[in-house]
């Protein structure tokens, strides 16, 4: 992979993380391809049909999230969760069909009211180049905390 492509992919990951930190969910959902999948497993399963997930969204459901986010009665985000993400250890490899597989590590501080938490995990992206931009075909985040008790992940990972 040439350095220029690699730089574009890193920039893409930083942008993706920044959109979530800034709660610009509309722009974030727009990063997903029409057949895109967003998956946060609750265990070690390889197949999302095997087991219940923390989140398993297709594009339609991601767009439904925008309805909640725009609602004045989205209680779980009143007040909104503040997040700050660090993305690193980026490894990108070319995949069949003009797609790229990217693995990165995520560490994020999560603050809501006076409660602060740290979440960490491995992110696997499958990206597709379309025109002059990348689209997310699959984003899977395996949190190291995935078997803990979560009360609210509505800010999204």
């Amino acid at each position: 992979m040439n350095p220029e492509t690699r730089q574009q992919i890193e920039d893409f990951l930083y942008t993706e993380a920044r959109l979530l930190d800034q709660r610009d969910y509309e722009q974030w959902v727009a990063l997903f391809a029409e057949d895109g999948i967003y998956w946060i497993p609750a265990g070690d399963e390889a197949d999302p049909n095997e087991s219940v997930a923390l989140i398993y969204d297709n594009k339609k459901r991601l767009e439904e999230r925008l309805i909640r986010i725009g609602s004045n009665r989205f209680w779980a985000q009143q007040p909104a969760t503040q997040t700050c993400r660090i993305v690193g250890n980026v490894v990108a490899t070319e995949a069949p069909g003009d797609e790229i597989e990217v693995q990165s590590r995520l560490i994020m501080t999560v603050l809501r009211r006076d409660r602060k938490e740290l979440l960490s995990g491995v992110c696997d992206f499958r990206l597709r180049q379309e025109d002059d931009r990348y689209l997310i075909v699959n984003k899977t985040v395996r949190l190291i905390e995935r078997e803990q008790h979560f009360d609210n992940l509505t800010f999204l990972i």
Partner: protein
Amino acid sequence: MINERYSPAALPALVKDDRVHRDLFVDPQVFDLEMANIYHRTWVYVGHESEIRNPGDFKTTTIGTEPVILSRDTDGDLHVMVNACRHRGVTLCEEAGGNQKFFVCAYHGWVFDSAGSLVNVPEVEGQPPEFSPAEFGLTQAAKVDSFRGFIFASFNEDVPPLVDHLGEAAKFIAMFADLSPSGSVDVSSGVTRYQYEGNWKQQVENSMDGYHAAITHHSFFDEVLQARIGRSMASIVSGSSPAKSVALGNGHSLIDFRDFDRKAILGADQPKSEVDWHNGVRANLEDHDYAEEVIRVNGGDGFNLLVYPNLVLINNQIRVIQPVANNHTEVLAYPALLEQVDEEINVARVRAHEDFYGPASFGAPDDIEMFKRQWQGLSRSPSMQWLLYNRGLHREERGEGERYSSQVTDETAHRGIWRRWVELMTAEVQT
């Protein structure tokens, strides 16, 4: 010293027909009494048979705050054993579940088998000659029994038989199981877990609360569903809905949506996999009227069933409430899969679970937010002493025995829960 207000003679004054004193949520002493008088007195749900199908299978859970191992021994019999070595109390089992013939204490190496018997003590010659290993098996629940795959245990030797305890709730557990053409659901698709700062009774009450849904879940019932299916579903929980709030007796209760004809609203088109599934249900059940009633549970919107004190069955979810402290509660939510149906039926059930009950779903996080806000308000406001439970008092109907029924936005179920709470908390004898 136990506060005199919580003695069997005085306690009923804190639970009136139409109100309950805040201290029953807030006071840690009440929580300790609940663990003894409720969680160690009646039957508590501990797991489903499909989680421990084979000899040697086990899972860890709690009865109240007490850690237990639910085990199927090598003969196939069920045991519920305290997860603490009889020597010095070290937990024997750190895993959520698995399969093993023996539980070995990591501290001094005492070995217990899957029935809880002490089978090996290292350096046993150091024990006095009169030491009898047979007396030091794991502490076991006095009773373990299951109904339609749902396993319950009690530490109370004198507890009434499980079927008597379940009473009216048994019929609804059976309907939940009979939605599966095999007659048994399967709990093997994982779990979502949440916790909140607050009391366990908040989740119990919320599970039976038809009144909150249109408000707390407005963004889902009105806004998301408007986009998804072209109409709001808030009418199912409105003041004019035919759905009901029902007290079944023994604290068990129901939000009964079966008279709400969801199919009439959403259309009756059925994919082939659903037709096959329903025919499977019909083939399994000899009583044709009953089979149609079961199928209608899914075609309508079914019911939310509370099996007091810690089990809730909602649509396709098995919810287990685990008290940790007066101000800390954990909840486990398992999708219930069906057996002998097309895979797409079960995948849809798992996705439906994530849709409303997961930690980033369109439902549960808003409930949990209310638990937190309720705890913030309730626990810090001693000047506001009473919580109100009066809705429907003027219009609820009493049925047979302890059965009461009223409109879905009423608090009939909640009053039944509190009647049982008082009964258990003031019982002089262990029954």
